[in-house]
């Protein structure tokens, strides 16, 4: 673990004038998915992005992942320009996207294998991450033998095992039932405390965002942009009970009103 130099703000990820424009060849129109995104994420920070559907939050994550090229502007990670996918980032998608013919351990080492870094040592690491996500004893099970929540744990272990500099999570719990989701949020924070990875977490659930994040970026739609950045000054470790805390609820209200404003605007747009 790199020691944080005292005083200096260690910027992990920064975007400058990031614009993503899609061109529809048929109608010859342009859709601005993201407009002028300028943001900085600090080393070790847990950042959530919330916003109404169509606000470009998933586009943003895919761009940071290197799956989408910016139309304009740039993204820097550890002061290196992002140009395509890299071993310094890993993504946890909404669907577990595990190889069904591979066991848990073979799925967790899959990323290492693709990056040609599978050694005895990194394999041991994989076992440690499996233990960290709470799946010790399930190493030789196939994905179909696991519940949805357990599959997402495997997905998370696979992402952590490659030891990325930045962890990207795209609504990883949205397909889970409400109780499992709450439990997984708490688990994620526990894992995050242990693994100490800078994380960007996309969600449409406001309470999930506040519970997890140091800072919440609220995105607005059409064009997708940052409308507010909300600091979450709730001390860690956080118990799930804080979701009923007045301070927590005030934050929910604040973000909710921002998103509501964005959604209504969208509604008027579509009626024009």
């Amino acid at each position, binding site marked *: 673990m790199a020691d944080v130099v005292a005083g200096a703000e260690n910027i992990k990820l920064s975007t400058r004038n990031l614009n993503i424009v899609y061109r529809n060849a048929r109608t010859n129109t342009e859709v601005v998915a993201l407009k002028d995104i300028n943001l900085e994420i600090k080393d070790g920070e847990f950042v959530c992005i919330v916003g109404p559907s169509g606000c470009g939050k998933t586009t943003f994550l895919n761009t940071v*992942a*290197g*799956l989408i090229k910016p139309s304009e502007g740039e993204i820097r990670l550890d002061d290196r320009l992002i140009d395509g*996918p*890299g*071993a310094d*980032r*890993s*993504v946890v*998608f909404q*669907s577990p*996207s595990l*190889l*069904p*013919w*591979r*066991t848990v351990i073979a799925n967790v080492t*899959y*990323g290492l*294998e*693709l*990056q040609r870094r599978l050694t005895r040592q990194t394999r041991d690491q994989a076992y440690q991450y499996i233990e960290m996500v709470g799946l010790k004893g399930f190493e030789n099970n*196939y*994905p*179909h033998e696991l519940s949805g929540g357990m599959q997402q744990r495997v997905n998370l272990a696979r992402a952590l095992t*490659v030891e990325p500099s930045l962890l990207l999570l795209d609504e990883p719990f949205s397909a889970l039932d409400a109780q499992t989701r709450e439990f997984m949020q708490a688990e994620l924070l526990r894992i995050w405390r242990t693994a100490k990875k800078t994380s960007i977490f996309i969600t449409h659930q406001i309470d999930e965002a506040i519970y997890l994040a140091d800072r919440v970026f609220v995105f607005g739609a059409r064009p997708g942009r940052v409308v507010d950045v909300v600091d979450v000054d709730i001390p860690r470790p956080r118990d799930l009970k804080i979701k009923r805390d007045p301070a927590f609820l005030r934050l929910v209200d604040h973000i909710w009103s921002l998103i509501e404003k964005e959604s209504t605007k969208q509604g008027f747009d579509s009626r024009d």
Partner: protein
Amino acid sequence: MKITKEKIGLVISIVSVSVFLLVWEMASVNRWVSPILISSPSEILREAIWMLQQPSFWNHAKISAFEFSVGFLLAMVIAIPVGVFSGWNFYFNSLVNPFISALYVTPKLTILPVIIIAFGIGVESKIVLVFLMSFFPIVMSAQKAMNTLDQSLIKAARTFTASELQIFTTIALPSTVPFLLNGIRLGMGQGLIAMVVGEMFAASAGIGFMLTNYGQNLQTGRMFVGVIVITLTGLALTYVIALVEKRFSSWKPDLH
């Protein structure tokens, strides 16, 4: 002993087959239908015991087995790579697909006369026919498998900086296995038909040739022995494929 659903099913199957054989036997013995047309189970059994002791029967069987295995193996060896690669690569697909699509719907048996002229009445013409008939189900299944790859797996692999080759070997190839086995099963059935029809049409040896001869000589019992041999072969091969399938699908959810 516990009575399970499977055991009841087995009993029902045994009873239904026994009743069928019994009615057949009675129909023959009581001359409801002329024995020349339908023979009878006991007659077929007698003939089978006699035939299995004849070296000529084993010679026919050997030749048929050779024709089928060479044609079928050749079909697998060529159809699997062609199907997989054409499903993977757009340009290669453009190159071969017109031929595959057209030949797939062409009844291959219609060109049998030309095949006989070109390759003679020996084993070669049958090998060609078996190859042609079993090739297309296999090639089509491989293409289909490649067209239905799980895109979310590919996307995840890309975030781990996977190369195209890595995506091909770690996602595409394993995904094709269940489809391929299905294509191989269909191709096997087609191959067996090709072998028999080829031998019946023009040949000097083979199970199909043998049963045509017996049929034309009104030795119906012996003809049925030939038919049963082919049926049993088909069942045995299907069983082998099912075993392979089981070996490759331990990761699949149990559907029972």
